Structure formats: C-alpha cells, structure tokens
C-alpha cells in the first residue's frame, strides 16, 4: 500500500493511498521551509485555545501536523529518506490518521492565532488546512462535515436550505416592511451573498441589507442560483469541493454581470470567496469582492450611510478570526460601531489577536466536537466577563451562533448582536421607503 502509484482497484474510493497522494500534492516550498525552520519552542500551544483551556499537549498546533510532517520528512528530505530506507521511519497509517482526526477537525478552528504567534513565521493553521486535504481523500473526515459538504453540493447549502426557503423568508420580509428584495436583477452593481445561518436563524440580516442599501440607493440584487456564500469545501478541507462551490458563485455573478460581490458577515465565507476563490478556480474574477463591513465603511465615507440614533448600553466587540485576523477587516467594524454606540469596552486581546469563538473551521458543523467546543468557550466567556458589558456585538453569523450557545452553556444572560443589523436599526427613517421604490424602478428599466 505504500506504492506511490495508485492501484486501479482502489480508484473512486476514499482510501489511505489516495490520502497519502493528497499529502504529497500539498507539500510545496513553504511547507518544506516551515517544517525545516520549526524550532520546537512550543509557543503555538499557548496561542491555541484548545490547548490553553484543556492543558492537553496533544492539542499543540504543530503536533496536529504530524501526518503531513511525516510525509514531508520521509519522502522529500534526504535524511528522512535515509531513515525510511533503514526502517527507522514511522509510516503514516490509517490508525495514525484515525487518531489524528479529532486533533485536526475537532480541536482546530483554523483561527490562525498559532500562525501569528510562531516566532519563525510558520503558517501552522495554513498547514492544518492542507493536512485536511489528505484527511478527506483518505476517508478520515468527521461525519458532520461530510454531511454538510454533501448537502452543500447536492442541495446548494450545508444546512439544506433551498431556494424556496429563501423565497419564503423574502416574502415575509417584504410583507413586514413593504420593501422589495431584488432578486436576479441583470446588470446590478452589487450581488449580495448570504449564509445559510442567516437565512434560517437570522433573517433580520437580509432585512438589514435591504434597509441599508435602499437608503444608500445601491443598485443591488440577490442571485437565485448563487445566494449561498458558505463553503463546506474550505471547512472539510477539500479544494475540489471548495472549487465547485466557488465556481457556483462566480457563474451566478458572471451571469448577472455584477461589478461587485458582497460577502456576508460570515467569516469563512469571506475567506472562501475573497481569498481562496481565485486560486481554487485558477482564474481571476471579472468582479470585485468586498466584505459587507468594508462596503458599509465605504458608504459611510461617501455619506450614504446615515444613522439617526445611538444606543447607550455597554457593548464589547468579538472579532471573527477569518474577517479580522485573516481578512484584515479590523478598523472598519470599530468605526462603524461608533455610528450607533459610544459605549464600547474592548475585551482583552481585542483586535488582531482576539480569541476564537471555538466554532470556526467547521467545528460548529461537527457534532462530535460539541463538548470540547463548549469547554474551550471558557476563554471567550472569561474575556466577555472581564469586559463587563451588557451585550456582545460581532459580525459573523457562525460566531454569533457559537456565542449564543456558549453564553447559555455558562449561564450568562447576554444578547449577541450583528453589527450590520445594529446599524440598520438606527438608520434615518425618512429615506427608507421612497428609495426602495426607486431601486425597484431602476431595476425594472
């Protein structure tokens, strides 16, 4: 089974051989440089909330890379090859991968804190993402993520949300507010993406988008063929599946001929469509991608985002890892929050080095990981507690869900708000209705 050529009979099945091949595919110059330059200092352990909250050394980020490291050492280095030839090397087996599966999926939210801490600059979280490619191909991905990926590809959303469900939510919003939510508008400037979480759990987000865009007189639309922004392929760690899902969004945007695609608040959706997308499909987008907060910040600067009131309650800001640490959207949320609240109390480590909610990187979709996820949420709980506030504001639907569940688990009665929704709630009321009509008229032309 260690033969590098894949046997004919094992094709079409997920097995160790295919997994090993995937590991070999993933090894490139950065991986070789990272593994060679690791000084075994162990600082990444202290950066990882799965380690700090459990004290379990197996959760040290660099340890999670053992399978990929073995392949690199044994097949891409001279010394490792010599060791292997002499029989001193430990092979990568199904048993090893089975043992490592909970470390790579349940105990890593791809939050990227370890990569930031690493004194020699190794992108550890990036390598865990690479390791997942081999885990998927060898058939060692957790059931929850397999199911989510299956639904994402087959039904269009990891949570099984189909177009009729979105249409139903749109009808509700239109009936409640009298606004029209534009869908499939050919030649619109902006195409908004949503996450399943928003459609099912937080439909207020769609309403908020409509309110804000109407006030700003933005020519926008949803796309019936590509409304889902989340990407289970990124979470499970399969570039093939991720590519398929990104391709879907790109096709939709190209068909409508939009100039800009708006990523929802959702963190990993932003990573998928904004950063990984062009590499996955192997070509440039004919449109721009912005995070909703980046767009709101632009609108604010252009004087097209007008709010009329502020809340006085004390709030703290939870930074979604993919948006803030990895995406670089750091200043905008704080500037935007000032529009509607002057009572921000930052939690310790706020901003670039904030701690993860514990549910990113597919952990929230992996039921098996739930007890661990709630245990390590203690870090976030402590952070929020030390901020001593009345509410938490964030800008990622998944973080929001995790915060709500986690706070409930630790018996903390505290609301969690979406920043976009908060802004929408404080818009100047006068411009709301007429602009909605205007947009509709423009769209019909």
């Amino acid at each position: 089974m260690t033969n590098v050529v894949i046997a004919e009979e094992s094709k079409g099945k997920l097995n160790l051989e295919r997994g090993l091949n995937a590991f070999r595919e993933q090894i490139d110059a950065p991986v070789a440089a990272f593994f060679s330059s690791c000084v075994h200092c162990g600082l990444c352990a202290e950066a990882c909330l799965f380690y700090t909250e459990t004290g379990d050394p197996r959760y040290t980020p660099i340890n999670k890379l053992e399978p990929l490291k073995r392949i690199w050492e044994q097949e891409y280095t001279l010394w490792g090859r010599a060791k292997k030839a002499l029989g001193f090397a430990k092979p990568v087996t199904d048993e090893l991968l089975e043992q490592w599966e909970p470390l790579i999926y349940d105990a890593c939210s791809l939050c990227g804190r370890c990569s930031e801490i690493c004194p020699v600059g190794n992108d550890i979280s990036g390598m865990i993402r690479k390791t997942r490619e081999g885990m998927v191909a060898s058939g060692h991905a957790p059931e929850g993520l397999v199911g989510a990926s299956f639904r994402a590809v087959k039904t269009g959303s990891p949570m099984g949300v189909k177009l009729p469900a979105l249409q139903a939510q749109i009808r509700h919003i239109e009936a409640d507010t009298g606004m029209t939510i534009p869908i499939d508008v050919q030649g619109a400037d902006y195409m908004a993406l949503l996450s399943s979480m928003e459609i099912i759990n937080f439909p207020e987000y769609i309403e908020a988008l409509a309110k804000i865009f109407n006030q700003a007189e933005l020519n926008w639309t949803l796309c019936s063929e590509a409304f889902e922004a989340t990407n289970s392929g990124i979470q499970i760690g399969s570039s093939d599946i991720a590519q398929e899902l990104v391709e879907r969004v790109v096709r939709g945007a190209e068909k409508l001929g939009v100039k800009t695609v708006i990523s929802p608040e959702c963190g990993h959706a932003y990573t998928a469509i904004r950063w990984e997308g062009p590499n996955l499909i192997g070509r440039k987008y004919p449109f721009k991608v912005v995070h909703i907060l980046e767009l709101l910040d632009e609108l604010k600067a252009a004087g097209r985002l007008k709010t009329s009131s502020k809340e006085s309650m004390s709030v703290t800001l939870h930074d979604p890892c993919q948006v803030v640490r990895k995406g670089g959207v750091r200043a905008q949320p704080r500037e935007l929050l000032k529009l509607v609240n002057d009572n921000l109390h930052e939690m310790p480590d706020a901003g670039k080095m904030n701690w993860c909610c514990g549910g990113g990187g597919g952990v929230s979709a992996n039921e098996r990981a739930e007890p661990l996820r709630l245990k390590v949420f203690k870090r976030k709980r402590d952070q929020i507690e030390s901020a001593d506030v009345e509410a938490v504001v964030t800008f990622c639907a998944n973080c929001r869900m995790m915060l709500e569940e986690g706070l409930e688990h630790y018996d903390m009665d505290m609301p969690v708000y979406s920043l976009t929704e908060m802004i929408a709630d404080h818009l100047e009321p006068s411009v709301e209705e007429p602009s909605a009509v205007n947009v509709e008229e423009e769209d019909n032309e």
Partner: protein
Amino acid sequence: MFTQDSLGKILKSHGVSRRGFIKFCSTLTSMLALHPAMAAKVAESLEKVQRPSVIWLHFQECTGCSESLTRSHAPTIESLIFDYISLDYHETLLAAAGDAAEKAMHEAMQAHKGKYLLVVEGSIPLANPGFSTVGGQSNLDVLQNVAKDAAAVIAVGSCASFGGLPNADPNPTGAVSVSDIIKDKPIINISGCPPIPVVITGVLAHFLTFGVLPELDNLGRPKTFYANTIHDRCYRRPFYDKGLFAETFDDEGAKKGWCLYRLGCKGPTTYNACATVKWNDQTSWPVEAGHGCLGCSEPRFWDGGGFYKALSLPDSDVRKMAGYAVATGLAAGAIAGIANKIKKQDMLKQHEVVSVDDWDDKS
C-alpha cells in the same frame, strides 16, 4: 658525599633567617594555590625533610631552562632549591668532570634506588643515536637507564615535555619527548621555553612537602600553573572584548596597549601562568612588553604557522572555497528541488477529484 642534615639546619648554616624562610614558604604556598594555612605545613615539611637526591640530565637543548632557574629574579631564594635538594648530577653545574662525574651519578642511583627524582632538560633524538651522546652513551640509553630506578621524572621545558624546537618540522634528529619513551613512571611536564622559575621550584616544593606530584592536566602539566589560558588572564583582555586591536607594532592601537591578537598573539590557545606570575621579579612579561605570546608552553608551538599570523586567519583562499561550496550547494539544492517537483507533479497527475459521491454513507 650525601649529607643527612635536615633543610632547616642547612639553611641556618647558610645564614637564611627564619623569617626569610617562612616568607619563601608562603610565596610557594600561594603560587601552588594551596590554602594559606598550608604555609605552616610547607615550612614544617621543608624544614624537616631529608634532602632528596636529584639527577638532572641534559639532552638536545640550549640549557635555557637551567638558566631560567639559576638566573631567576631572586637567586638567593630560588637557588635555595639547590640546597633543599641534593643535586647529585647536573652536567652544567657539576664541578666534577669526565669519569668522576659519571661515577657520582651512579653512586647516587645506587644509594637512592627508587627514591631519587630525575629531571630531564631537552628532547631525545631517535633518528640516529649519535646525534647526541654523553660519554659515548646515547641520550636514549642514558634516559632509560636512569629513569628505571627513579621515583618520578620531571620534564623541564618544552623540549623535554613535547619535543620543542628540535622536534620542529622537518625534525631532522627524530626528536621526541620524555613521555614518548618513558611509560612506567610518573612524569610531570613543566613546559615553556623556558618555563617560569617559580613553576619549577613550586613543583619540587610540592613533591618535598607532600611526597606526591601535584594534580596534572591532560598534557601532564601541573594544573596550578597551567589551568588558564594567557588570554583569559591577560590584562589586555578588555580591549579584545571591545574589539580594539593593534594592527601593527607602531600604530595608535599598539601605543594605547590594545589587544595583540591580530599581530599573532597565541594567548587564546596557550596555557601558562605568565600573565599572573610574570617574569623578572614580577617586572613584566611578553605581552606587557608589547609583543604577542608565542605559545611556547604548548606542543609544536614552532610549527603554529608563524608567530605574527593571527590565530583564526585562514591560510587558504576562502573566497574560492566558499564559491565552490555555494555552487555545490546550489547544484545539490536544484537537483533535490527538481526531484521533489517531479514527484509532486506526478502526484498531481494522479489526483482524483474528490466528490461528495465518494462517501458511501453520507448523512
């Protein structure tokens, strides 16, 4: 011929005061790095000791070591050593000559069989026994003969200790050290060209006081005097630490007393006590006089590549070597890189697209 008087008596008869004697013992005690309280014991022992018989042999040498001792800064004190010991045979100092001298040596050897000390000055030629003979006997025969019944052998000077100058490349006489020949006796090497006088007296006093030789380093030298490098104890060391070096013997740095490392000082690799004990009644020593250490107490110091060549200056064209090394490294790296790239391409070719249909049991 052999007096049985104790040293105390002899000293008194030579007009050495009790005070002078105690002062000398204290000096020796501190030189030997013994506890100050030991001074009394040294004095007591030296006072009572029966003079041991010493036979001093000269082979291929310049007699500089004997000169160092006899012409040392305080002859009255240092020469006392000759009163402590019964120097029964010393070719340079001996009044007798010819057969009488040889007879004295044989008598001493018989009378003190197994108890006398053998001091050797000079190296032993092995290429041809005729290169150095005394009374028709080769140095090798004399050494083996006299060492046979000695209590211990003291090799004085770098020639006897390590071969010294006669041993320098191309070593025409096949000169070797005492320890190359004598294997079954305790040997103590007092290296230096010449050694510091007090080191010679100190070792003898140690033997007289305690009856054993002092602790030795890996080259058989007494640790008391050879434990530190000249460099570590050098008063110019702070300049080295600051990177201040004299570049020529008459530049500003030399005038300001900066480190002589770049002028070839061998202090960093030389173990001796010059920097602390100094020479000529503690007047000065080579580095203080403005000249780098030659490394004379180290083996093969004549062949160290030149007295004025700095220690770590490479003696071949480094740039050329570095060029080759870099080129080799680049070539090896490129080959390994290409091999790895081919492997990865092969893997990519064999890549099977992962599809959700690959899972048999999807939820």
